[in-house]
């Protein structure tokens, strides 16, 4: 097991990602944040909190999206996925959506996410923010717009983001 990020690095990176979002979206008047269930929401929670601190008074719509029913491996996967809550209480019609997940690997989760998003309206644009980009491992033409850290890894390795809220500490590790 190799540590890629400790708590301090993680915090600095999340801060940078929030500032990059701010740079591109300024007052967030037409922008909404969508975190992907289950593990993307720890990141999106923090980004949302950070942005609220940077833009006091701005009300940034924030939702959570579960992609279980949109997966492309329902008939081939050996395990059945249990659906988590989807909580999007606003329309995405003509909004600029920032999709947030912890690790980008094959791109299939994001493809399912794009499919699911369309059921809530037609967004003006969709951007992708990820904490870890496992590059050179994409199975679909999907690239992130905001990246915390780029990682080179092989298929047998696993990258796991640990969150204090769930795993008792903040850390990014690579498992062989």
């Amino acid at each position, binding site marked *: 097991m190799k540590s890629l990020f400790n708590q301090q690095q993680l915090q600095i990176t999340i801060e940078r990602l929030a500032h990059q979002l701010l740079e591109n979206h300024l007052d967030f008047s037409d922008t909404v944040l969508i975190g992907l269930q289950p593990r993307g929401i720890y990141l999106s929670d923090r980004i949302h909190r950070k942005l609220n601190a940077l833009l006091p008074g701005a009300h940034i719509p924030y939702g959570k999206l579960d992609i279980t029913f949109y997966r492309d491996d329902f008939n081939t996967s050996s395990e059945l996925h249990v659906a988590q*809550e989807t909580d999007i209480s606003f329309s995405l019609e003509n909004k600029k959506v920032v999709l947030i997940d912890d690790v980008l690997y094959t791109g299939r989760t994001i493809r399912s996410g794009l499919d699911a998003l369309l*059921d809530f309206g037609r967004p003006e644009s969709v951007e992708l923010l990820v904490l870890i980009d496992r590059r050179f491992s994409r199975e679909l033409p999907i690239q992130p717009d905001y990246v915390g850290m780029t990682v080179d890894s092989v298929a047998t390795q696993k990258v796991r983001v640990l969150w204090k809220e769930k795993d008792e500490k903040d850390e990014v590790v690579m498992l062989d």
Partner: protein
Amino acid sequence: MSLSVKHLLGIKDLTPGDIDLILRTADQFKDVLQRPIKKVPTLRDTTIVNLFYENSTRTRISFELAEKRLSADTINFAASGSSVSKGETLIDTVHNILSMKVDMVVMRHSASGAPHFLSRHINASIVNAGDGINEHPTQALLDAFSIRERLGGLEGKKVALLGDIMHSRVALSNIYLLTKMGAEVTVCGPPTLIPKHIEKLGVRVSYNVRETLAWCDVANVLRIQLERQNKPLFSTLREYSLYYGVNKALLDSLNKEIVIMHPGPINRGVELNSDVADSKQSIILDQVQNGVAVRMAVLYLLAGKKEEALS
């Protein structure tokens, strides 16, 4: 995580974990059904046949809608007007349908045990949509879902099943489900409509409607099933209504507000009066609405199971 069974033949075969998984999955499907686009692509390569050997309005529409909301392809089969009237057997009919690459069977049949019999002869997953006087598992699941939604849970809740317990598959499925999930159950009706030894299933028996209503949090009022009663079990419908019917005056005299359910179709003025069926205490239409979400959950979880068995 997945179900411990390949078919949904009855609640009898499910574990409390299975029931919990179905209800939690149904929560998410209920959420899908509130959206502007009420459809997900999950079962787009699955074909399901709805095999109805007995009449149905709600269950049949509910299953068909659940299948369509999941993007499955559906075929509807009604025994009347089919080759069943030419003498084709159940197994032959089903084998012929399955040979056209159908993946799942939803079946209602007037013979108790028909889906269990079929499950021993075919590979496709079977969902029992009611078999004779045995079980109606998806009805019990949607009843449980509705109780849980209204009262916040099932454990420790007091549920009364009123009326024709003897001929009701809804009653039996509800008894299995509620006792497995830690609810208390009382069955109540005329002695001729309550099977002997039913207390062996872990329920209380009462012959007094007023007393039962005063005890319970929820009353599930069941339909008098005249079509299944081969001999007279009470004198007249009027007499039944007088002694066992639920009306507003009776509920108002209880000093507490209980939740009223009915699996439909209602015999208005017999087991349930209109002043109760259409009141705000009644969650009858919520039950119908929840039925779609619960059936989506059952189909989704069983379709996933099918592939697991193959791999």
